[in-house]
């Protein structure tokens, strides 16, 4: 597998996270049905807040040189020092964990 081009990070991220997120969302809906809205209102704020928080400190980590991104494999659009793909990464991974925790809570109920 070779990842090339300025959209390499973006497609790598969306290609891996997108299908899983979709499956998780369907799973949460299938479990909670009419209460899905309430469950999403419970789990979305932490996912969004943590995504924003991690993006915030990532700026300082990049500025400090802890890690660096390829200019050839990112879009080149940055918020502060942070590539937009990286911001998307923090939001998507936090959402993956939040939905996974929601699905796990459903499993807990079933096995209680």
């Amino acid at each position, binding site marked *: 597998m070779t990842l090339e081009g300025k959209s390499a990070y973006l497609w790598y991220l969306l290609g891996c996270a997108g299908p899983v997120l979709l499956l998780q969302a369907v799973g949460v809906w299938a479990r909670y049905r009419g209460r899905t809205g309430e469950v999403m209102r*419970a789990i979305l704020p932490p996912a969004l807040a943590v995504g924003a928080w*991690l993006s915030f400190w990532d700026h300082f*980590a990049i500025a400090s040189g802890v890690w660096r991104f390829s200019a050839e*494999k990112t879009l080149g659009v940055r918020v502060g020092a942070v590539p937009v793909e990286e911001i998307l990464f923090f939001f998507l*991974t936090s959402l993956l964990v939040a939905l996974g*925790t929601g699905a*796990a*809570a459903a499993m807990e109920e079933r096995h*209680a």
Partner: protein
Amino acid sequence: MTYARFLALFVVVPLLAFGWRYRKSILFGGAWPGVALFCIVYAATSPWDNLAVKEGIWDFDDARTWGVRVLYLPVEEYLFFGLQTALVGVWVKGRLHALSQRWAAP
């Protein structure tokens, strides 16, 4: 600042705060789903992140890590996976616990 110090300041401190805030919810419904979630996160994220570094999308400055890599990643990166999962998971679990209590209320 090093990767470890960033983790300690920006992830471990909030995690401890949320852990304390939601201490009664952490084991809500049992521990095994959380353990399963951690296993899934590591199984999915480790190859994903390793391949990204191998392909040169991003990389780390060894002078700002402990200098120990497992495959392509410094050990702090593996710690980050678990800490992010714990941070989001504890907070979400606390809110779901509160929601389940509202549903159970007469």
